[in-house]
């Protein structure tokens, strides 16, 4: 029987099988950020060293100020402490660090692919749940907590149990106004917020094949919001074209050797998946979330659900408390929801194509509410400025900032105040995610820009 992409990468990284079904996997690439501070502390408390510093890459993202990338701009002493510690730890252990003032700095999940650090057929680990992003290049990439990260720093390995495999096939042409963000929100709505728990997802089908790498990164990024261990797309010509010439991508004869390996990776035609999900892209509309779970996504033409029409008591109780938290009335049209502010950024939707899509809409009007645009990396920022996107945003009254995780998680002080409502291109609409009491609606960059121009959730197709 044929093998899946996941199985091929698994086998290429298996050091030893043992411990009752657990496999010791080699970690080819490890990405660290300011949040990895606890792992470095644990490592040093135990008197251990970083085993393979040349396989680790670092950049600060969660706590960095988007107002300025000088260290003094970080107002919160706890955030400043960990950004400074990242600098100290990477120097101490000889780890490549794209520091705050480095033009290669950015959100770790934007920087990895951008620099060619993320490559097909590797195991990649990072202390952040959105590590699933890197699967877009055909890598097996997953997030882990501080103890596991300590383990990876010390041993360059991880103990893993074999996941089940799920193939999600998306076919059909994406209708006008429907983007990769809408595809993944529709997938999560269908599969459920923990529906892919225990699985590694492979996204397949003509719609995924037709996507650019940036679009695939958006799709894979939110695999974790369906509960999956990882999400991946088999490498193809689009992948190779994207990687060629990037700083850490192989060059010359090494490129040919790499390419020969990459071409062996796609799942075999007779490979078997434990679960199959099918989605018709042609039926999709721009999506928006109304609740506190990414699965609470609906076409923008839809309505806020009514708890009274729910028969399942757990579901009814969830809807009641969610609508109360979100300040929404049952049955109201999603396009009647007024927003107080807009965030365009995050590892989900802050790459160049995302900013272009938002700028295309921003051109057509002026913001009615405050809008914060934070590019996914300093490289994205520079490229966007070269194209004049910053000017389009500024002319529309959008605020153009530096790169970082920013308002997606609100750790750097970019917050949504309690009771305020934010249309956001990020990945989580959890209660309090963007600040205590904040209300988040997830949507695509174009939809976010449309909401900015009208001050409410808006069907970008009708703008």
């Amino acid at each position, binding site marked *: 029987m044929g093998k899946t992409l996941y199985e091929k990468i698994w086998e290429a990284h298996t050091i030893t099988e043992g*411990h009752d079904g657990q496999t010791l996997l*080699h970690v080819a690439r490890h990405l660290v950020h300011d949040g990895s501070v606890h792992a470095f502390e644990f490592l040093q408390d135990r008197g251990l060293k970083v085993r393979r510093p040349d396989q680790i890459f670092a950049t600060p993202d969660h706590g960095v100020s988007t107002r300025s990338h000088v260290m003094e701009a970080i107002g919160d002493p706890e955030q400043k402490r960990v950004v400074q510690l990242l600098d100290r730890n990477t120097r101490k252990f000889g780890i490549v660090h794209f520091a705050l003032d480095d033009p290669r700095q950015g959100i770790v999940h934007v920087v990895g692919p951008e620099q060619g650090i993320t490559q097909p057929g590797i195991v990649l680990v990072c202390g*952040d749940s959105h590590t699933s992003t890197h699967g877009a290049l055909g890598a097996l990439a997953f*997030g882990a907590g*501080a103890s596991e990260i300590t383990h990876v720093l010390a041993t360059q390995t991880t103990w893993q149990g074999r996941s089940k495999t799920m193939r999600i096939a998306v076919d059909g042409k994406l209708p006008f106004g429907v983007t990769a963000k809408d595809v993944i929100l529709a997938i999560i709505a269908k599969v459920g917020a*923990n529906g892919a728990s225990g699985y590694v997802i492979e996204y397949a089908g003509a719609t995924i094949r037709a996507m650019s790498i940036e679009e695939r990164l958006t799709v894979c990024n939110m695999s974790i919001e369906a509960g999956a261990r990882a999400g991946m797309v088999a490498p193809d010509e689009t992948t190779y074209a994207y990687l060629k010439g990037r700083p850490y991508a192989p060059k010359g004869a090494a490129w040919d050797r790499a390419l020969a390996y990459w071409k062996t990776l796609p799942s075999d035609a007779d490979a078997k998946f434990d679960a199959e999900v099918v989605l018709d892209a042609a039926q999709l509309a721009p999506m928006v979330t109304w609740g506190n779970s990414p699965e609470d996504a609906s076409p923008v033409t839809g309505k806020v659900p009514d708890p009274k029409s729910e028969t399942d008591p757990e579901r009814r109780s969830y809807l009641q408390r969610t609508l109360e938290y979100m300040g929404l009335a049952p049955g109201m049209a999603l396009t009647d929801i007024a927003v107080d502010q807009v965030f365009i950024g995050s590892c989900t939707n802050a790459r160049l194509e995302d900013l272009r899509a938002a700028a295309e809409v921003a051109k057509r009007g002026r913001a009615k509410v405050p809008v914060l645009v934070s590019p996914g990396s300093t490289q994205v920022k520079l490229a966007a400025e070269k194209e004049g996107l910053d000017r389009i945003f500024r002319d529309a009254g959008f605020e153009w900032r530096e790169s970082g995780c920013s308002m997606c*998680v609100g750790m750097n002080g970019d917050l949504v105040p309690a009771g305020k409502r934010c249309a956001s291109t990020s990945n*989580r609409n959890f209660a*309090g995610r963007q600040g205590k009491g904040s209300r988040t609606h997830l949507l695509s960059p174009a939809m976010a820009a449309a909401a900015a121009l009208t001050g409410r959730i808006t069907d970008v197709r009708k703008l």
Partner: protein
Amino acid sequence: MQPFVVLEGVAAPLDKSKVDTDQILPARFLRRPRKEGYGQFLFRDWMDDPQFVLNQAPYREARILVADRNFGGGSSREQAPWALSDYGIRCVIAADFGDIFYFNSLKTGVLPVALPAEICSDFRKSLHQKPGATMKVDLPAQTVTGPDGAAYKFEIDAFRKKCLLEGLDDIGITLQHEAAIAAFEAKYRQRFDWLFHGNV
């Protein structure tokens, strides 16, 4: 890691599904040094509500939490199980767990027990009827005994079970494989040499 063998203690019912990691431990506390403790930040944004279960006298001493579906989805923050453990909760029973939270808990000495949603629901009902009732979690036998005395079997990976029982952390175990790791790395660096070129 603190070993986990048998735990008997007060159990608190948490009647909410989809309790994500941002509820368990909000992001604004993530950068506190580990040694300063995280117990005071557990469910921080719910603790202002006097009706919240852990604010009610009989449940304040809870060692076990009984939740609903999809507990711990979201972030990879190990601080979520640290907050539970530092508060005194060493076991969470739920219908299913966020994948990363589940493994982070095991590494923190907090036992996540997955049982069918109906059983979790029955436990919570009993705990409401008998506030302050205790439950028992027996890791060697892999059983949970509810407030009514009925026992249920649960599943756990044998490797993680052993680590919990003995309080082992896996770095020590892994380092015993040093020879295999070194041999693998040498081969890997040869086969995938292009991964090691441009790292300047």
